[in-house]
């Protein structure tokens, strides 16, 4: 299959950058919802990598992996959002920095 002249390296590089952006985003944002979105960015970076690698390997495994990642991403979002909801019931508008009762 033609890789359309693009080496897998480009995809992977893109994926790495996206992964890093997502990671940095998680580190700098305080809104838990935005943090979750950043996690989604990271997962998407992984997906890009999987698909590109699969293509490079001429193997469907990468795509299969992406399939499962999508499932996991969905469940994670559900749980994450549920947690945020639960926390907001107790303390409205809480940011990630606000939940720091436990430390040390």
């Amino acid at each position, binding site marked *: 299959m033609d890789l359309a002249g693009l080496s897998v390296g480009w995809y992977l590089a893109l994926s790495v950058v996206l992964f890093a952006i997502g990671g940095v985003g998680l580190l700098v944002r305080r809104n838990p919802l935005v943090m979750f979105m950043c996690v989604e960015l990271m997962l998407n*970076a992984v997906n890009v990598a999987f698909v590109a690698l699969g293509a490079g390997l001429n193997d469907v495994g990468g795509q299969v992996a992406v399939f*499962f990642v999508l499932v996991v991403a969905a469940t994670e979002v559900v749980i994450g959002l549920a947690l*945020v909801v639960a926390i907001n019931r107790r303390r409205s508008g809480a940011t990630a920095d606000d939940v720091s009762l436990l430390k040390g």
Partner: protein
Amino acid sequence: MMGALLAQLPVQTPDVDWTGLLPVLLPSAGALVLLMVRSLVPSRVMPAVLDAVWTFAVAVASLVSVVVLWQRDAEVQAFGSQLVMDGMALFVTAVVLGSVALVAPTLPRYCKRVGVASAELCVLILLAAAGAVVMAGAADLIVLFLGLETMSIAAYVMAALNLRRLESLEAGLKYFVLGAFSTAFLLFGIALVYGATGTTSLDEIGRHLDTFILLRDGMLLAGSAMLLVGLGFKVAAAPFHAWAPDTYVGAPTPVTALMASAVKAAGFAALIRVFVEALGTRADDWRPAVFALACATLAVGSVLAAVQSDAKRILAYSSVSHAGFILVGVQAASDSGVAAVLFYLAVYAVIAVGSFTVVAVLSGQRDDRTGLDTLAGLSSRRPALALGLTILLLAQAGVPFTSGFVAKFSVIAAAVEARSYWLAVVAMVSAVVAAFAYLRVVVAMYFRDSGDEAETAAEAPKPAIGLGAGAVIVAAVLFTVALGVVPGVLESLTSTAAGL
């Protein structure tokens, strides 16, 4: 139409060994049954204690299936090449299910006292156990990942389950955010390893690496690093441990017990699967990294345990330091190292459940009375409970004639055999530092001055222990001591499991 399609495209479904699948099936089916029954049967008819009884029964039944599988000498291809119940998987499964079986009896009284949904908790526990078993038996990185997620997501929820306690929610959130974060790393790692070897099957990865010498191994090694991050997070290895103390303290105490036992065991099983087995040929590359992680974990766990003033937190940090010890066994990258890890996991699971159960018993209505001062004078209020906790703590410190000593001995032996002398030394020294933390608990229980002892004794009524928790503590203590005196039984099991 469908049939025609199938005829046109025959799908080669994998062989399923149903007995082999039982350790996964039983807990998940058990969870679904419980969920359904609870949704359909009005709670008037079915007292809450039955949740725990059911959970216990399911765990025991699964354990029986594990024993049955153990009797077969060959490794069981439970589900094609996806799930392999070999010796190690079975052993870790037993540890996981054993932890569940030990925690279950403590639940009814705890849930009632603290106000945690017992049915849902039991469902989640069983599903998490199923996920853990999958991790232990996973023969494919994807399966491993899914098992891990099943277990983890259940664990995130369980950690937050004490909804009325903000700390619990915080624990859940922190665990979740960091878990998701590290999952991303793990996934990237899987992707890179997949890229480097063209497969996600652990078996094939191992074979590939055995057969070929990679000229360019950057992708493989970067993938290994990312995998180590993801799995290191699950076992709470420093510097990926930061969630552990907060989560352990915030989570409902029985859940904490499970996180320290079952979750940790599954995490280490995955580490062994991936690193010792699949990436075994590249041990020279990853051993120094694990060496560093082990040192950091040991140091962080024990030093931070020493400065805590909350019993639950001390146990949380000590759990980190135990992870360091187990990493010492992983670092050996040998069969005896694996055997040592398994031994340690079994021993520590029991100790952890026992210790956290004691904490749970004492933790009061909101599950937050866990400070050292609540333990003050326990020796006079509840001498047996104090003695039990003392024995468990001494076991954690590695005092002889407890299972803890034998466990430490086994990992040290593995490390020494692999010529990792300095790691062994670091481990032993950090054990001393950690011992200080345990002794603080003991001091609180036994050596408070009589003046305020009388005071606290008067003010704090004798905590009710309850039959279930009592039985669990007694069982844990007996196991701990018995194994300390005659460790040979377990030793032969782990040797077999590790293929020695």
